[in-house]
């Protein structure tokens, strides 16, 4: 291997990434808000790594959390891998069209995806959970805590880099001959393994008996932290380099699924029966013919349900799942919902139809997608959850409807208030800049989780009446906020601003 050339390429890639990040930073709209958000994220990370060590801890609680450490470590790997595979190789620093005119190498692209990976609510929450759990287990011993958190952070970095390697390899396979079939078969096989692991305790133990269990022992203070650092640091370097080579492999192949979809034909259907039906049909096409949106929705609808099949959940825990799924789905495109039309929005705005009907159609297709994905998850989760109590069944149904309303309201409000011109063709594109997405996902997670916990608490108390009252109040609040969006959408000046931004 020509090492000198490789070294030069990596050095250039790092330099180019710096240029791209500075370019992105220069285009940030609200600098002060962004700086505050960044500071808050850093403070939360530092807080989660330190504060739990100094809180009062019951020994049994420490033992319980210590026992969960291997699972936390594995969850980070699973999250990084699934995110990278689902997003076709991770996030892009510069949108594909904008990057096309610049000599951005696959190595730069790979490093950019690694740098942007932490800008995801799921990644941040999992990392904060891990750091918090380590701090809780280690306790108020600054030296040991610093060593353990160093190991934990190295594990997080390795998990992220590992996700990128798998993500790029998945993309390489997907772009190859019969790529979609190959990748789907592999995902099916992985799901079967996950299912088998859930059903067979021996396999479950075996899965966590590898590096995760050993690293967890180090984090608990039962192993040498220095040795872990010595092993994990080179592993990180190897994974980053391997990801670079995998990115190169993927870049040599054309993104088949996108090009195939962009040349696909659809037979003519009879004309729609009403204006609303015609617009709903067009919007549905925009959603379900989009590779990233379809892939993301199917993944989000099925993945938690499959895990629930493998590791049965109680009905009271099932109440939480719709919030997770619906929040994830609305983040695929729903927070910038007018960008679905791309520059076609300009033409659509010249069609003689009331803005109310346009908004209703867009809201309808978004709501049915969110509700459908949440329903699939609940049905899969219910298979092994046993027979529910009446209050539990009501709580799960209410949670599904209420979080759909909350996600719909949030998505429509953000789409109206902060539209962005984005090309949603690529699985790697996000409907808003990464840091904005972190803000959206955090707000959604807080709202839907708080709602779900409230409904679950009423269900546990055996009070379906309170579940229904709470659901009605929360739904009414979402309706009020959607009515606000309607008022703003009716204003031609505000609508023109959205159209001008999205079609820019």
């Amino acid at each position, binding site marked *: 291997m020509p090492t000198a050339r490789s070294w030069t390429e990596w050095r250039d890639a790092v330099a180019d990434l710096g240029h791209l990040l500075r370019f992105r930073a220069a285009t940030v709209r609200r600098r002060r808000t962004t700086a505050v958000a960044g500071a808050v994220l850093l403070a939360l990370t530092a807080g989660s790594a330190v504060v739990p060590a100094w809180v009062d801890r019951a020994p049994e609680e420490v033992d319980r959390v210590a026992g969960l450490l291997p699972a936390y470590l594995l969850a980070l790997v699973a999250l990084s891998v699934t995110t990278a595979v689902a997003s076709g190789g991770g996030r892009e620093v510069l949108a594909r069209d904008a990057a096309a005119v610049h000599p951005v190498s696959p190595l730069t692209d790979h490093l950019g995806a690694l740098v942007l990976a932490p800008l995801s609510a799921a990644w941040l929450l999992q990392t904060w959970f891990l750091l918090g759990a380590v701090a809780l287990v280690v306790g108020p011993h600054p030296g040991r805590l610093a060593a353990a958190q160093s190991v934990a952070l190295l594990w997080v970095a390795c998990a992220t880099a590992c996700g990128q390697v798998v993500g790029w390899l998945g993309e390489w396979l997907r772009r190859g001959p019969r790529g979609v079939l190959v990748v789907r078969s592999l995902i099916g096989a992985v799901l079967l393994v996950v299912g088998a692991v859930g059903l067979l305790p021996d396999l479950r133990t075996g899965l966590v008996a590898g590096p995760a269990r050993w690293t967890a022992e180090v984090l608990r203070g039962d192993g040498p932290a220095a040795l872990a650092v010595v092993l994990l640091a080179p592993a990180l370097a190897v994974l980053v380099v391997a990801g670079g080579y995998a990115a190169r492999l993927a870049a040599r192949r054309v993104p088949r699924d996108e090009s195939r979809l962009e040349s696909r034909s659809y037979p003519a259907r009879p004309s729609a029966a009403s204006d609303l039906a*015609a617009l709903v049909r*067009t919007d549905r*096409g*925009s959603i379900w013919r989009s590779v990233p949106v379809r892939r993301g929705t199917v993944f989000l609808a099925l993945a938690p349900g499959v895990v629930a099949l493998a590791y049965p959940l109680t009905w009271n825990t099932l109440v939480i799942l719709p919030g997770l799924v619906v929040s994830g789905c609305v983040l695929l495109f729903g927070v910038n919902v007018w960008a679905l039309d791309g520059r*076609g929005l300009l033409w659509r705005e010249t*069609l003689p139809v009331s803005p109310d009907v346009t908004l209703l159609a867009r809201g309808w297709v978004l709501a049915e997608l969110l509700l459908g994905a949440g329903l699939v998850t609940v049905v899969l989760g219910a298979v092994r959850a046993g027979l529910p109590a009446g209050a539990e069944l009501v709580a799960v149904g209410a949670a599904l409807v209420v979080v759909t309303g909350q996600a719909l309201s949030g998505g429509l409000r953000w789409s109206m208030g902060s539209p962005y011109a984005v090309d949603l063709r690529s699985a790697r594109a996000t409907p808003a800049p990464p840091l904005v997405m972190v803000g959206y996902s955090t707000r959604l997670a807080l709202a839907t989780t708080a709602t779900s916990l409230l409904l679950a608490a009423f269900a546990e108390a055996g009070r379906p009446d309170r579940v229904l009252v709470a659901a009605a109040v929360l739904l009414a609040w979402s309706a009020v906020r959607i009515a606000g969006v309607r008022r703003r959408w009716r204003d031609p000046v505000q609508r023109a601003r959205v159209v001008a931004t999205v079609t820019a």
Partner: protein
Amino acid sequence: MTGEEGPAVEVVGLRVEFGAVEAVAGVDLRVEAGHAVALLGRNGAGKSTTMRVLAGVVPPNGGLARVCGHDVLRDPIAVRRLVGYCPDVGGLVPRATPWEHLQLSARLRRLDHWEPRARDLLERFELADVAHRVTAGFSHGMSRRLSVLLAALHEPAVLLLDEPFDGVDPVGVEATMEIVDDARARGAAVLVSTHLRDLAVRACGEVTVLRGGARVATVPAAAMAGEEGARAYRALLD
């Protein structure tokens, strides 16, 4: 047509601001039924913004803009029924097919028996082979041709074509010229914005030159033809 008296397009003292930027600063424009007017001018002269106001997409900050007697601010839906608009950028829903675009436009405009005309237009613009293919994979020229076709489907009283010749092959240019001629022949008003002076002169009977968001001249198209026309045009731009 609506049967309204007066010009098909009437713009008086039109002003459009985007924040601190004044995109249109007092444009006056008048297009009679059965006439075609070309809008010429440098980038940022206000041509596309004026078109968007007339299409009902951008509300004006001041002045008057009427289409067949309908105020674009007060009666935007009526204006949209009367106008056929080919936007300067994109203008197509990426994951819908040309036929689905036509179907949606026909449905919302209450067109009956529109299919034969749609098929004829697709043939004329050589898009019949891709009528059921999603537009995301279309070339720039194909997208332009489809945008012109969509603007013409409902035989609008006012045809607004913004950069209809941009990146279009000779077949598409001829088909667009036919659309303009047909529209004029049936009494529609046509407004064409373009940077291609020769094609503007061919397509239209009159040329209006915009500069810095305002009209600087309206002259017969023949005055902008050939070398002499090029010199005259350049003089108006400086």
